[in-house]
Structure formats: structure tokens, C-alpha cells
């Protein structure tokens, strides 16, 4: 298990450095004079320019700049936001739980509906149920999610008044942030009704963000189940006289989920991209909204730091998914050992 983990980590190292290069280089390829751009001042006098140049470290040779940048990263310093003057790392981790919470709820939504839908579609292959499920998931896959979000807001928030329009919690509640996860914090606080309120706010954004993963998971589960159901060991399970429920739910599903777990891993990157759009629509105070704002307000250090942190988070999540995959599929773990 440990060897497996180290193996995976080794593969990540060059990618990590690649991303640092991208983040590092991005500032230096911006149009215009980087000093002017970063300082936000125009028409700099020569002395002021030289002063800022030295301050930013741009007067040093490029390889040294990169080296300094790397050592800064390893010390946990990813620069300071040009807008708020706070360390980028601080801002990121303050907003990260909101996105993480949304992402987890979205994936849960996608799994709870998508996996059973895929199983049913596989069992009833060719029937109208199967075709219906596949059509719906194809539609979900083809929608622009920002439009889908707006549509749901029009329907549920405006017309039916069922869900709140934006934010994580009604401003009537005062919940002290402990973990940053609203669902946990509301449970910890003694504000009555705040938990349900937080849940209420999570419904629509989770559905919107989870729609594409839902479609993908449903399709993948279906094709994985179809493949597994025709395997020899399923026939053996039937020959043992096991109940249909056990055959499908235990024997077949366990093997089918192997493929599906890989798919979930791929969905993490999709989720983060989707979060950018979803958080913008729902005014959700997370990483997505923050990075958009940073790009627009030309807060380049925030963008640079955000890019690196987001990419690293995705890599870590993918690693965790890989480990989970190893747990479900014993063959991967035992790859090095032979009987």
C-alpha cells in the first residue's frame, strides 16, 4: 500500500513543477510592462520604476526569480493579493471550505441518483426506461450549466419561491465560523433552524453543479454494469443460487464501481471548473467566485497563487481517489506481489 502511494506521488512531482512554471510564467507574459501592471500605477517615474522592480525582484535573472518563487512556495508564501493586501494562501483557505462543501454535496447528489439510475438502465437494457434514463443524462451533459442554474433560479426561487436565490445562509442567522463548512458549523452553533437553512441554500447549487457529473456517472455505471453482468463470475454467482439482489448489488456492483470510481476522479476537475460558473450564479462565496473576481480585477498575484493552489488540490484529490481505487480493486494493490 505504501509503495503504491509513493509510486503515485513520484508521478505527481514533475506535474507540480510544471504547474509552478505555468503560474510563474503567466505573470511574465502579460501584455504591457509587468511592473506597471503589478503596481497598478501608471506613468511611473524612472526611480519609482526601479524601486518597484527591485521590490518585486524582477531585476534578478529569470532563473533566480524562479528559484526564489519556488522557495517562497515551499515556505507557504504565495504572494499577497493586490486588492485586499492579504496573503493569497490565507484568502484561499478561508474560501476553500465553501467550495469543498458545495463540491461534496454535488458529487453526493450525482452518486445517489446516478448510480441507481445506471444500474436500472443496465438491468432493463433496451427498454424505454433505459432509453429514457440515457436521454435525460445526455441532455444533462449537453446543457450549459450557467444557463441551467439561471433557469432553476427563475423557476424555483422567483416563480415558486421555494429556494433562496444566493449565498450560503440567510443573513438573519449569526453562525460563528469554526470549520468553514456551513453544515457542520450550523450544527455546532446554537442558532435554531440554521442547519436546515444552510441545507436549503445548498440544494439548488448542488443540483446545478452536480448535473454533469450525474450524467457522466449514470452513463458510466450503465456501461460498466452491462460489461460486468456478462462476466463468468456473475454466472457462477447465479449458479450458487444467490438472490438477484445479492448478485447485482454485491457481486456485480463491486466490480462495476471500479470503473465508476475512476470516472469520479476525473469529475473533480470538471467540478472545479463548474464551481467557477455555479458560484458566480448563486453568489456562493467560494474559490470559483474569488478567482473570477481576481482575474477581472487584475489581481495577478491572487490568480497566480490561486492557479497553483487549485491545481494542487485537484492533484491531491485525484491521489485520494487513486488510493480508494486501490482499496476496491485488490489486483492493483497486489501488482508487485505474485503468489
Amino acid at each position: 500500500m505504501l509503495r503504491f502511494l509513493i509510486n503515485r506521488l513520484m508521478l505527481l512531482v514533475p506535474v507540480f513543477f510544471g504547474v509552478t512554471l505555468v503560474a510563474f510564467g503567466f505573470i511574465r507574459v502579460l501584455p504591457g510592462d509587468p511592473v506597471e501592471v503589478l503596481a497598478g500605477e501608471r506613468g511611473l517615474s524612472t526611480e519609482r520604476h526601479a524601486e518597484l522592480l527591485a521590490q518585486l525582484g524582477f531585476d534578478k535573472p529569470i532563473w533566480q526569480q524562479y528559484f526564489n518563487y519556488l522557495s517562497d512556495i515551499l515556505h507557504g508564501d504565495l504572494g499577497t493579493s493586490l486588492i485586499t493586501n492579504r496573503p493569497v494562501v490565507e484568502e484561499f483557505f478561508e474560501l476553500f471550505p465553501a467550495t469543498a462543501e458545495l463540491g461534496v454535496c454535488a458529487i453526493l447528489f450525482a452518486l445517489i441518483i446516478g448510480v441507481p439510475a445506471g444500474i436500472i438502465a443496465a438491468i432493463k437494457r433496451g427498454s424505454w426506461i433505459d432509453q429514457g434514463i440515457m436521454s435525460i443524462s445526455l441532455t444533462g451533459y449537453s446543457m450549459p450549466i450557467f444557463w441551467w442554474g439561471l433557469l432553476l433560479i427563475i423557476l424555483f426561487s422567483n416563480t415558486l419561491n421555494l429556494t433562496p436565490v444566493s449565498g450560503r445562509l440567510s443573513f438573519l442567522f449569526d453562525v460563528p465560523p469554526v470549520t468553514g463548512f456551513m453544515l457542520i458549523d450550523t450544527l455546532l452553533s446554537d442558532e435554531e433552524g440554521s442547519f436546515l437553512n444552510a441545507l436549503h441554500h445548498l440544494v439548488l447549487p448542488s443540483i446545478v453543479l452536480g448535473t454533469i457529473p450525474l450524467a457522466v456517472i449514470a452513463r458510466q455505471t450503465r456501461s460498466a454494469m452491462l460489461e460486468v453482468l456478462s462476466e463468468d463470475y456473475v454466472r457462477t454467482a447465479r449458479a450458487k443460487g444467490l438472490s438477484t439482489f445479492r448478485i447485482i448489488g454485491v457481486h456485480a456492483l463491486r466490480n462495476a464501481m471500479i470503473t465508476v470510481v475512476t470516472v469520479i476522479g476525473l469529475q473533480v476537475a470538471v467540478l472545479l471548473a463548474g464551481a467557477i460558473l455555479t458560484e458566480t450564479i448563486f453568489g456562493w462565496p467560494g474559490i470559483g467566485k474569488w478567482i473570477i473576481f481576481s482575474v477581472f480585477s487584475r489581481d495577478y498575484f491572487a490568480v497566480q497563487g490561486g492557479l497553483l493552489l487549485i491545481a494542487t488540490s485537484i492533484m491531491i484529490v485525484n491521489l485520494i481517489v487513486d488510493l480508494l481505487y486501490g482499496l476496491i480493486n485488490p489486483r492493483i494493490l497486489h501488482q508487485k506481489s505474485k503468489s
Partner: protein
Amino acid sequence: MNTETAPVTSIRSQQWKEFWFYFSVSKTAVAGLIFLILVILMALFADVISPHGPAEQFREYAKLPPSWMEGGQAQFFLGTDYAGRDMWSRIIHGSRMSLLAGCVVVVLSLSIGVLLGLIAGYRGGWIETFIMRVMDTIMAVPGLLLALVLVAVLGPGLLNAMIAIAITYTPSFVRLTRASTLTELNRDYVTASRVAGASPTRLMFVSILPNCMAPIIVQGTLSFSTAILDTAALGFLGMGAQAPIPEWGTLIAENRDLILNAPWTVTFPGVAILLAVLAINLVGDGLRDALDPKLKRS
């Protein structure tokens, strides 16, 4: 010489017939194809078809609902936006943007991706490692985010958005092509060609590439539809096509404030995106089923 070429052409036409047979089995794929052709025609003949100009403003008729609703007018089929521009005309013209974006993105990412993939697979060694690590790095950053950052660097606009998106799609093609190339390299016909003295270029493009085309075509179709979605997303965020260009995503962004009063201005451009992408995905599904030898039923 003649006897050599005749069988080749008939094999080609036989392949087409066989391909069409498998493709047409899926009615949804055919329906998608028909719709797609309609959209293409709509884009090509936009000036002729649309009742008004996309930028023509009818100030007196601003924020009119669709013609079938109360207060709507027949001449403005889908209603008008905040500046009195006919939504239907704008959507028709917007199809040009979306299709253009899809084409440019796929052409760019496919050609560069396939080329890099061929080289990586064929050459191996450090060239392959280098190319694959670069692709891994690009894939480590979520597509939309990378596109955003690239657009921030290049400046907003439809063309820059297309270039940025194309860069984010390139790794998929590289991986696909490299994997196929590696499989093909071991085959006897490649060894035979090499022994016969074929140059690397000839080997790559004439011998190996045609046999990798099936998954590349399927991925290309998928990228086409995703490109339309991503272009619309960038347009929505204000980083893609800039107003008053009637790109569908930009249309939604422009009218976002009207979401309460005039929801049709936001709904219909989205429906257009949905239908176009759905059609392409149906065609893509049909292509995959027709081209995938494992699924062929005898």
C-alpha cells in the same frame, strides 16, 4: 496500375456504406445529424433567414415577450432584449459564432494534438516524456480556469477565447494519438514499411495515422460540443466574445439583469446552446457506435 487502384476505391466506398449502415441504426444519431445540418444551414444563410439585423434596435419595442405570449408581436418571434433587438435574429446570427468556435477549436487542438501524439509515440525517449509531462501539466489545471487565465493574458475576445480553449483540449488528442500510435507501432505492417525504407514522416502519416482515426474522430466530435459550451461559458463570464457580438453565451450575460422581468431573453439563447450541443453529442454517440469494432454485431 489501373487494376491496383480500382479495388482500393471500391474498398473505400464499401467502408463508407458499412459505416453508414451502422450509423443509421441509431435513429437518434440520424436525428442529431439532421438537426446539425439545419443549424449549419442556418449559420450559412443567417443574413437571408433572419427577419431583422442582429444589431438593429427597435427602441419602442424593447423587452417584448415572445410572439405567442401576451404583449408579443409576430415580427419579433422570440421577443426582444433590453435594447429592442430581435432575439430570434440574434440567435440565428449567434449560431455562426458557436459553429465557428467549435470548428476553430477542434481544428487547432486536433491538428496540434495529433501531431504531438504521433511524434511522442513514434519517437519515444525524452521527447515523449517531455511532451507527455507538458500535457499532464495542462491537464492538471481545470479547462475553464486555464482558458480564463490565458484569456487574461491574451485579452478578452472570441478569437482569444478559441485559442485558449483549443490549448486546453490539446492534451486529450495527444494522449489518444500516442496510445494508438504505440499500439500500431508493434504491428507487422509498420515493420514491413520500415524495412521497405519508408521515411519516418511517411510512416507516421500514411501508415500509422489512418488506423488511429476512429477514436480521434469520436474525440473530435466530443470536443466540438464541449467547445461550444466553453465558448458560451467564457462569453457568459465576459471573457469571450464581447457584446454586441451575438454569441449565445454573451447573449445570456447581456440580459442577465432582465432575468426577472424578461426571462425569455435568457432562456432562448440557452435553449439554442442545448439543442446544438445535444445534436452534436447524438451524432458523436452514433459515430462511436459505428466506428467501434467491439460493438459491431455480425
